[in-house]
């Protein structure tokens, strides 16, 4: 169907109308360019959000204490619930598939090193916490809290990169001592706060040490743990219900009382986030496709004008023996040629721009805080689909004008001056 000769025929007709062909193609280029860039940004946004969420293992469940809002078995409402070792034991031994588990207690205060100081939160955690919250300590930046720290109630502290900047400037903080509330802690590690969604990141101390120093009488501010196999929204709901029931039995409150304890489940969160991201993606796809369609309608429109202008030529071709099929092919291939060539330019430009933006983001990454975009590029599959869609669109754009061209009557066409 497509040989070099017909290609030559098309080139010769395109050459006749360079500017018009260029402008027509520009609409398609722009359409596909916007589609690629929009999809690239959508991907970038998705990647960034997913990375920001990766500060927690994506099946983390945290339990926070609250106040009851319903009377239960003679207990009036408005009773404060306090989490303690009973809850910890429950989760550790009565709930299956728990992988990592850490109780937490927090206190805010001043942390000082020599003449520098700042006000931060200190949180007592167990070694498991690093796995639960994805706390990353880079090589050469020390270590996280371990079992010996816990057992010996060592006064050691893991600070974050922000604190290091304020307190130590360019000094190496490992092994140095900081003071908080008249107690001296040795710095054992600096964790990276990059990709951590939370802006108020604490310094970590061993849980046993915190219990001793913060004097909270055996109550926990929070219990965090990860569970295997709770990934879907439905599974999360069921799991949460069972957990509530069990904790309610310990503290004697109504399992339906949602304010007695707060259960936060990242599996549910990330499922919901994924849903939102999908909606955003779909929305962007629709906008992009719409702008592409506008370009394609433009091509169709111009082809229609072209056919009208070339009525005489088509008539002559038919008179000297061109079949309807060859006229149809001539017009459709021209439309395909314009859309694909122009679209290809759009694809290349779009990929180049998104690639460049991705590169700039990577190069300028400061390391503080989360970024809005990460790797904003489209995958090869999308590009292949877009190319195929372009060819299809070319056929669509050329079809009506081409059919019109085949209906040209040679006599009338040649009579028209």
């Amino acid at each position, binding site marked *: 169907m497509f040989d*070099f*000769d017909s290609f*030559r*025929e098309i080139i*010769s*007709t395109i*050459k*006749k109308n360079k500017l018009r062909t260029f402008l027509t193609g520009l609409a398609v280029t722009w359409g596909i360019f916007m589609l690629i860039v929009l999809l690239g940004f959508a991907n970038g946004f998705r990647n960034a959000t997913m990375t920001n969420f990766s500060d927690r293992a994506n099946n983390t469940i945290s339990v926070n204490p609250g106040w009851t809002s319903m009377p239960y078995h003679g207990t009036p409402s408005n009773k404060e619930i306090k989490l303690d070792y009973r809850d910890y034991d429950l989760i550790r031994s009565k709930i299956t598939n728990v992988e990592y588990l850490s109780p937490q207690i927090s206190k805010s205060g001043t942390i000082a090193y020599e003449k520098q100081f700042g006000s931060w939160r200190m949180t007592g955690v167990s070694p498991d916490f690093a796995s639960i919250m994805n706390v990353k300590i880079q090589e050469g930046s020390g270590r996280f809290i371990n079992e010996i720290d816990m057992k010996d109630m060592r006064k050691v502290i893991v600070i974050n990169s922000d604190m290091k900047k304020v307190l130590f400037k360019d000094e190496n903080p490992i092994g140095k001592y900081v003071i908080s509330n008249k107690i001296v802690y040795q710095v054992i590690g600096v964790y990276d706060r990059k990709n951590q969604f939370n802006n108020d990141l604490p310094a970590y101390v061993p849980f046993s040490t915190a219990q001793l120093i913060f004097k909270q009488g055996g109550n926990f501010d929070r219990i965090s743990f990860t569970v295997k196999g709770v990934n879907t929204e439905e599974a999360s709901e069921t799991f949460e219900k069972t957990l509530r029931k069990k904790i309610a039995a310990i503290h004697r409150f109504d399992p339906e009382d949602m304010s007695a304890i707060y259960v936060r489940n990242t599996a549910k969160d990330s499922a919901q986030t994924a849903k939102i991201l999908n909606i955003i993606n779909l929305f962007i796809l629709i906008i992009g496709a719409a702008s592409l369609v506008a370009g394609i309608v433009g091509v169709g429109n111009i082809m229609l004008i072209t056919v009208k202008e070339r009525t*005489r*030529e088509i*008539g*002559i*071709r*038919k*008179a*000297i*023996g*061109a*079949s*309807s*099929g*060859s006229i149809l092919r001539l017009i459709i291939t021209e439309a395909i040629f314009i859309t694909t060539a122009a679209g290809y330019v759009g694809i290349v430009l779009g990929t180049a721009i998104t690639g460049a933006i991705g590169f700039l983001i990577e190069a300028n990454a400061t390391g503080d805080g989360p970024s809005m975009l990460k790797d904003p590029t489209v995958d090869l599959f999308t590009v292949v689909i877009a190319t195929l869609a372009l060819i299809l669109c070319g056929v669509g754009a050329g079809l009506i004008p081409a059919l019109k061209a085949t209906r040209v*009557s*040679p*006599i009338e066409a*040649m009579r028209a*001056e």
Partner: protein
Amino acid sequence: MIKIRNLNKTYNNGSPLHVLKGINMDVEDGEFLSIMGASGSGKSTLLNILGILDTYDTGEYYLDNLLINKLSENKAAEIRNRKIGFIFQSFNLISFKNALENVALPLYYQGVSRKKRNILAMEYLDKMGIASHAEHLPNELSGGQKQRVAIARALIARPQIILADEPTGALDSKTSGEVMQLLRQINTDDKITMLIVTHEQAVSEATDRIIHIKDGLIGSITINESPTIAL
């Protein structure tokens, strides 16, 4: 070559217009004849039917012993391409193709390779005496040169008959004479049947037989014993 029996054609644009009212005519192989008539006599319609560019309502039309009736568009295109050469009053060259490409176009639709058809086209342009203008676009050529290109295009597919519609209509008398001479020469040398439709007395007098058509009917047929090109 051509056998037409009781050919009728009516146009139905608003009110029906009976253009051809029973035409009977025969054209022998290698004839050089003309169809004459005033405008509105039906001669153009007849030419279009002869060229399979238009259909007829009743009657019979045989071209080279083949009944031409209700052919598919593609079949008609193929017959036009292989058997019939057209020459038009307004030349009908494709404006953005040069002389050579215009001449070669019928062969493109026959599927002849580019190289081969360009060689052939050059040959025919040379025969018409305008090989030096092969690379020129139609608007860079004079009327006579354009008609020569058109004649070369009509000849390149080696048709059995050439249908010429007022071939000299847009030319001055000197060029007209040259074109008529050329057509006569082709008729003699290549034995190609030549049918010229015209309203000019002088043109028709250059042919061997003149068919007069009037109000959709053949009026009279004149045998021209001594054809003269007096243009």
